């Protein structure tokens, strides 16, 4: 068979957690980025530390990428479990590279699959004397098979291991070479995949995960206090910030639980320092009482929830978008709050800055719903221009100690916008009590009908113009008018984008809306979008059982979406959406 150049390639590496799957994948990713390609990765970790199935998939392309794609082109299996997990996906035309002979399994006869046995274990254990070199042997083989630039690979390996000494570098490079040699000498390439770069990747590129983007952008947003309790898959945010906060005179505290974490973040923000906490579902559940305190005391706060599969402990390393109800409706009483969701790694960066800005502008808690797939996905993005970023600071009492335009300072002054001036300790004339009790303008407790009514209205008035003022143009794409509209949120965004392109090139008239604001529901944008879909067929794909965003849309707009829910711990791929759209349009 003639080897053609592939415009893009999806490689999946699977094996046991701890076998170096992740680092093998990361080397390819970095080498690809270095050679001017777009990259988007997709990972699965076992819930256990050792002994479970781990997977690293990378998609490289000469064109910008928004999703992990439908299926891999190449599967590399380190062990039998990885083979079993992926067997059904080894369809005609895919490539299977596996540990053999001498591995722990023998694959079946897979019709139409290009099979490349590479004795990874044997080479590393036997020839190199250490099973730890297995991933490098595999890497060498893969690089050789699919023309992954060897020079770039060697550089990244050298860079990675330089601190561990020349011996380690040598050993790894040797393993890489042995994998490559084995392919060169023992195998004959029969598949059509071979990577070529046109060098038109992202200029001035950074490569980072969604979690890292959130962490780094929080610093840029002015966050100087971070308190959290470890939880998968949010801990990476803390890991990154722990290293950088001291450099910006900020502080990170790992606290005894999520309740203490959010309580101390509220304390820090009350004291005038921009504060954040990050968690996943179980932690957010625990935080709901304190979320109400932030809403009631009108203390700015950013809470990141990197959603995972629930309910309860669920599947801690798996993907889901099922905390939206909690974010929008969790907590007793009527709590004003803003819920945002990023759709890409780039969004993680810019939207978390917006989250801090909105928290300060409106003095509300802002919930930022990331998800597993996005949090641990790495992607190349153009390096942000920090100078261009506008930061919002809270409305505070003036230096003469007065509040809004000359009026005497009252912390909870009833204003037209609902936003009141907010002092911080140290400001003369600004003393007040931040209290979870209902209070009057001065912050003294009240129990009257009129008082509670007016204050409730004031707190919600802050959000009345949120959509118009802060999300005037919700990102929309596709045909106008369209036969079907798709509204998506979170990382589902990327698969919808790709599905849309495919559908449109197949002649379907479809459009998509990608709101970053989930709650209050951006009703204006949704109504406007639905107006341009005369059939009123609005599909809302989301990774949860109940169709949570669809229900919120139903409640707050005239649109009755068609729910498209999956709940298996994995994100959507574009094909699922393409198929669903076709199915709906056929009806």
């Amino acid at each position: 068979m003639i080897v053609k150049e592939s415009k893009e390639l999806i490689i999946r590496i699977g094996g046991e957690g701890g076998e170096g799957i992740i680092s093998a994948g990361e080397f390819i990713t970095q080498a690809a980025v270095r050679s001017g390609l777009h990259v988007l990765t997709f990972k699965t970790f076992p819930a256990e530390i050792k002994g479970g199935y781990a997977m690293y998939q990378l998609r490289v392309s000469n064109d910008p990428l928004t999703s992990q794609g439908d299926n891999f082109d190449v599967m590399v299996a380190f062990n039998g479990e990885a083979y079993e997990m992926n067997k059904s996906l080894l369809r005609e035309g895919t490539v299977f590279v596996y540990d053999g002979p001498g591995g722990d399994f023998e694959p079946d006869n897979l019709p139409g699959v290009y099979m490349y046995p590479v004795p990874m274990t044997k080479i590393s254990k036997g020839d190199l004397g250490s099973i730890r070199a297995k991933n490098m042997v595999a890497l060498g083989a893969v690089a050789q098979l699919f023309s992954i630039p060897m020079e770039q690979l060697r550089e990244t390996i050298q860079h990675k291991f330089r601190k561990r000494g020349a011996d380690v570098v040598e050993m790894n490079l040797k393993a890489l070479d042995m994998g490559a040699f084995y392919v060169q000498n023992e195998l004959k390439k029969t598949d059509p995949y071979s990577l070529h770069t046109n060098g038109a990747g992202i200029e001035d590129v950074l490569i980072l995960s969604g979690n890292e983007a959130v962490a780094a952008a929080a610093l840029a947003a002015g966050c100087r206090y971070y308190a959290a309790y470890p939880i998968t898959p949010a801990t990476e945010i803390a890991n990154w910030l722990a290293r950088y906060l001291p450099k910006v005179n900020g502080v990170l505290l790992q606290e005894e639980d999520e309740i203490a974490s959010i309580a101390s973040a509220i304390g820090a923000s009350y004291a005038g320092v921009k504060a954040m906490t990050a968690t996943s579902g179980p932690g957010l559940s625990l935080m709901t009482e304190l979320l109400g305190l932030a809403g009631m005391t009108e203390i700015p706060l950013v809470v990141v929830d990197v959603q995972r599969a629930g309910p309860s402990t669920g599947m801690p390393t798996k993907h889901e978008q099922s905390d939206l109800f909690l974010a929008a409706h969790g907590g007793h009483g009527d709590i004003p709050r803003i819920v945002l969701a990023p759709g890409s790694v780039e969004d993680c960066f810019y939207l978390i800055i917006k989250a801090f800005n909105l928290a300060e502008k409106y003095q509300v808690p802002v919930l930022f719903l990331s998800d597993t797939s996005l949090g641990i996905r790495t992607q190349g993005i153009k390096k942000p221009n920090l100078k261009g970023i506008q930061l919002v600071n809270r409305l505070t009492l003036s230096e003469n100690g007065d509040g809004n335009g000359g009026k005497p300072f009252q912390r909870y002054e009833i204003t037209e916008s609902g936003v009141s001036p907010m002092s911080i300790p140290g400001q003369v004339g600004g003393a007040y009590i931040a209290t979870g009790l209902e209070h009057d303008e001065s912050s003294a407790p009240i129990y009257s009908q009129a008082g509670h009514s007016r204050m409730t209205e004031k707190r919600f008035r802050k959000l009345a113009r949120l959509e118009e003022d802060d999300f005037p143009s919700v990102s929309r794409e596709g045909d106008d008018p369209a036969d079907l509209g798709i509204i998506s949120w979170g990382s589902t965004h990327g698969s919808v984008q790709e599905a849309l392109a495919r559908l449109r090139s197949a002649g379907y008239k479809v459009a998509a809306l990608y709101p970053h604001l989930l709650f209050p529901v951006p009703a204006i944008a949704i109504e406007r979008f639905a107006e341009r879909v005369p059939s009123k067929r609005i599909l809302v794909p989301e990774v949860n059982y109940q169709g949570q965003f669809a229900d919120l849309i139903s409640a707050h707009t005239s649109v009755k979406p068609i729910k498209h829910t999956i709940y298996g711990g994995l994100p959507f791929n574009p094909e699922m959406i393409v198929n669903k759209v076709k199915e709906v349009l056929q009806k």
Partner: protein
Amino acid sequence: MNAQAAASVALKPKDYKSDVHPTWCPGCGDFGVLSALYQAMAQLGLDLYKTVVVSGIGCSSRLPFFVKTYGFHGCHGRALPAALGIKVARPDLSVIVTGGDGDGFSIGAGHVPHVARKNIDITYVVMNNRIYGLTKGQVSPTSSLGFVATTTPFGSQEEPVDPVAFSIIYGATFVARGFSAERNHLADLIARGVRHKGFSIIDVVSPCPVFNKDDTYDYYKPLVKKIDATHDPSHKGRALELAMSTNTDGKVPIGVYYEVQAPTLGDRLEALKKAHKGSDTPDLDAVLDTFRV
């Protein structure tokens, strides 16, 4: 706690009094604690605007409303972590936490050891009435075994907790007990606690005459005794022994049980910032460059 320079004009106890009239019942022990606090604040010359009084929920937790400084009246049991955030974010502030035995040692029980062992430089005044006042009379964690209250009509089935002994074991570096009827003594303890650099806790016997008819002023007066001058508060074992003695001889020693100097969380965080050349105008662009391949 030397967070503040002394205020320029000397303030009197009454200058710390807010316009809000205390909502406590006549005879409530918390009045004595509040007066002692005003007195201690004046003694320390705390700046009205650089002091934050933090609390949770309960009768006692209403205290911040009666003080003229900044205040934070948060959720039940979460006063300590909120105070931690305030103090870590703003080391220049004086932070005093007040609240009840239930707020601190029941729903808040999980936070005390973790805030104590950080040795964060705040002062925690527990108004211990051995009852839930605000919810109208249920056993609190400090209620004695057999104590009859609304949810324990046949007597409490649990041994009480001891805030003093717990705090010593937790790593608090200043642990004292006061009595709301001994106002000057208590004011002095609070002032010492605030001056102490590190986590200080003062467990205050503060009767609730409405719902706890056992642990009244009359009951306590003959039992309370000032800790002997021979007691060495720097010795943890001795301090614990003294704390545990209450259970055996029935006397209630007031004064400083334990006091040692140790680095505070603030010290450690400052050192960390310094070691990393912490800057208020950091080069974030360079930080982003760490994400280049």
